[in-house]
Structure formats: C-alpha cells, structure tokens
C-alpha cells in the first residue's frame, strides 16, 4: 500500500472559484486510512456499482424503467437529465434508500442484501451526499463526522477524532471543528457532509445534486472538493446540473430521460455530439445556444 500525500487546501471561507486549486501545504494524514483498502468480500474484477434491470414506481408513476448501469472502480459517472427524469431515485436505489421494485443492485460484486442488518453494513460502504446537506444540527462539525465511525464502526473516540480532524483539513475546514451546522455557510455545510460520508471509508460516493441548494458563489468550493476526490481515485456517481463540472471531471456521462437511459458515453461525445433526440432537447435548454 503506497503512502498517499493528501493536499490540504487552506480553509478559504470567502468561497473558492471553480478551477482554482489552492494548495498551500502538503500534509501526511493518516495514510493507511485514506488509501482505498480492499474491503473484505469485494471481488476486484467486479464493477464497483452494478444495476441490472432496476424498476421503481411510486403509485401509478413509473419512475425508473429497466435501468442497467455499471460503474467501475475509480470511475466518475455523472447522471444528467431533465427534472423528474428519475436521477435522484436512481441514485437512492444504489444504497436502497429507495428499494427497487425489481432488478438487482450490486456493490463491489455483492448484491445489496434485503436483510436489515446486512443492509446496514452494505450502506456503511456507500457514502451519500444530499442536496440539503442533512447535517445533524445537534452536533458540531467534528461530531457529525465522528458519528458514523464511532456509532457504526465502533472505532474508539480518540481514533475517530483524528480521522475527523484530518478529513476536516482535507475539505479545508480545520478551523470549523467546533462549529454547529447553523453557524456554517451552505458551502461549508456541504463540505462537512462530504467529510462525514468519507469518514466511513466508503467504496463509492453518491452525490445527489450536491450543489443545487447553494448560492452561486459557494458552488466552487464544493466542486473543488469533489474534483480532488475524483483525482484521488474515488468511485463517484454524481447527479448534477453542473454540466461544466460533468464535462471536466466525469469519465462518463449518463443521460436519463423519462426513467430510461437515453444515452451514455464520454463527456465530449455526449455534450458536443449527442445522438439521442431527447439529449439534444435537454442540452439545448441548459447550454448556451452557441454550443449546441
């Protein structure tokens, strides 16, 4: 296992412009912990996330129609598409926050179990970042990050604190360890939420419109953390409206329309030469006219 140097960004509370990477000093943080150790039971040859024939309906509304999708280890896949196309539901099916009506979901080659306690441990290996952060308001930033390792993984508090502090410095918020969520800006909250998910040392990270609830000037700092994470080789499944980010960071873009995968492929192909009519319509609405 090679030692890994994590670039800690200076904490920049004034927001960071997308694309600027302010690397002030490199610190060696708990290297074993942050490098991707293979989890017991994972098969290296299997895709990290694999959905086969996933269907989901809410009442009479068929939200997902026979979705099959696989994400390799270290791959960053962005899911884009019109609102109501089922992007969030698809993401929530990956860790069974929504239970698919039919079809299978596998993480690292292991089918997501139905059994409640096995499902809990499967969920612990999938990090999720929510549109509205969902930080625990009665806990400080540090306690939010420590909660999973201490309560779920039963890691000693002192060790969990070390992990949490190193993650806070990774997301540039070392000075906010003692702050409660209400004392943080939206961008800071989301960075703490990312750290909280990372503290469980997940195999894959799910981002559900992670920047949609943020003021425009705060989006950059969150995207930067996500960009760093992608560069470190984290497997990521990202539902986003940030087409620029999807183009720059993703290995693959999946276009979802009407609960089906309309098109998937490399960002440059999808965004500049979409084959599918529905992709063209969607992109025409969100991209400046000169680009389409």
């Amino acid at each position, binding site marked *: 296992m090679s030692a890994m140097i994590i670039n800690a960004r200076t904490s920049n509370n004034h927001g960071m412009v997308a694309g600027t990477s302010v690397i002030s000093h490199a610190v060696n943080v708990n290297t074993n912990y942050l490098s991707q150790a293979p989890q017991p039971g994972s098969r290296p040859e299997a895709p990290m996330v694999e959905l086969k024939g996933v269907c989901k309906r809410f009442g009479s509304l068929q939200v997902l129609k026979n979705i099959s999708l696989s994400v390799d280890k270290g791959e960053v896949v962005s899911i884009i598409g019109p609102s109501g196309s089922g992007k969030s539901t698809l993401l929530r099916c990956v*860790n069974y*926050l929504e239970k698919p009506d039919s079809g299978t979901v596998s993480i690292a080659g292991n089918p997501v179990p139905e059994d*409640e*306690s096995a499902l*809990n*441990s*499967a*969920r*612990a*290996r*999938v*990090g*999720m970042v*929510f549109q*509205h952060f*969902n*930080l*625990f*308001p*009665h806990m400080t930033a540090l306690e939010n990050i420590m*909660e*999973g390792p201490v*309560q*779920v993984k039963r890691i000693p508090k002192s060790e969990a604190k070390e992990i949490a502090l190193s993650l806070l410095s990774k997301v540039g918020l070392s000075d906010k360890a003692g702050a409660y969520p209400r004392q943080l800006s939206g961008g800071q909250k989301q960075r703490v*939420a990312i750290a*909280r*998910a990372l503290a*469980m040392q997940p195999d894959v990270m799910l981002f559900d419109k992670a920047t949609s609830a943020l003021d425009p000037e705060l989006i950059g700092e969150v995207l930067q953390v996500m960009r760093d994470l992608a560069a470190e080789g984290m497997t990521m499944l990202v539902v986003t409206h940030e087409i620029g980010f999807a183009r720059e960071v993703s290995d693959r873009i999946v276009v979802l329309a009407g609960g089906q995968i309309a098109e998937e492929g490399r960002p440059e192909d999808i965004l500049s030469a979409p084959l599918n009519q529905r992709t063209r319509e969607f992109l025409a609405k969100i991209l400046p006219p000169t680009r389409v």
Partner: protein
Amino acid sequence: MKESMVSAAVFIQNILPTLLRASGVTVKLTAFSIILGIAIGTAVALMRISRSKVLSGVATAYVTVLRGTPLMVQILIVYFALPQIGLRMDKFSSAVIALGINASAYIAEIIRAAIESIDPGQMEAARSLGMSYGLAMRRIIIPQTYRRLLPPLGNEFIALLKDTSLIAFIGGEELTRAGQHIISATFRPWPVYITVAAIYLCMTALFSFVVQFGERKLLQ
C-alpha cells in the same frame, strides 16, 4: 368587616399546614404519573410510527380509547372495577396507574408529533451512514425532539397536576380531599377552597417557570 378578615387570616394560617402536607401527596401523585406516562407514552409513540400495521393499529386504538373516555370514569374503573377481576391495589397505586395511563395517551401524541416534525432527511443521512433504525432514532432523531417536546409536555404536566384533584373522589388524601375534610368540620368553604386553589396555582406557576427555564437552556 375588618374583624372577619382577620379571623379568616387566622383560620387559613391554622389550616395551611394540613393543606401543605396534602399537597405533598399531590406532587408525589403527579411525579409518579408523569414517569409512568412518559414511559408508556414513548413506547406507544414508537409503536404508532412503526412500519408494522399491527403495532401502529394497537397504538392508535390505545390512544383513541384513552383520549375518548373521561378520566373520571377511568379512575373509577381502575379503583372499583379492577379489584372485581382480582387486581387489587391501594388508593395511591390505583391513582398513579389511572392518571399515568391517561397521560400516556396524550404524551404519545406529543412525542409522535415531535418525531414526525423532524426533517426526513435526518433519518436518511443516518441510514446512509449504515445506522440501524433504532440507532438512528436514539442518536439522531430523538435528541432533536427535546426542545420541541418541552412546551407541549409542560402543558400536559400542568394539566396532570390539576387532574390529580379527581383522586379526591376515590378518597385519595390529596390536596382537594384535605380541603373537603376541613370544610366538613368547619363549614367554611370560602377560605378553604380559595386556599386550595391558591396552592394549586403556586405549584403550576412554579412548574411553568421550570419549563421555561429548561426551554431557554435547550435553546442555547
């Protein structure tokens, strides 16, 4: 006029120790009933929000019956009817059980409403970390309800304290009953009932103050 006022003051001074001793019983009744009410109420609230249709059905029926029948009748059933089927208890235990069970129905609804007022995203975030439902409830959801629980629970406890006066009707020696005893010996209902009412008011006012203080503490 002045003379009768003086005599009333002396009279109240004389009966006050007896009444204050009886209010000790009232406070004890209230305290035990609150503890029983919170214990059962929490369990019933968790049953009501559970996914099991049986559990939530039982809990709903429990709340409906206990809220839908008079507390007086419930007290009479516990004290006079239960012994006929072999459940014999002293007056104090009967009173605590009747008051506590009645309060538990209201407390269950207060707790359920508080839990349901917490953003569902909190449960999702906790579950996404791999927490079990029970752990998420204990660590994430329930602690967030405390501040929202305090004002309605305070109201409920004040109502409960006043409802202990109904125990006089089964002969429980609490504050109201002690007043009745004095009246039957002295035939002076005015100063006695006014004093009894004033003591209740002091207790509830003190309690409101404690609740407000607690609220401020939790707000910090």
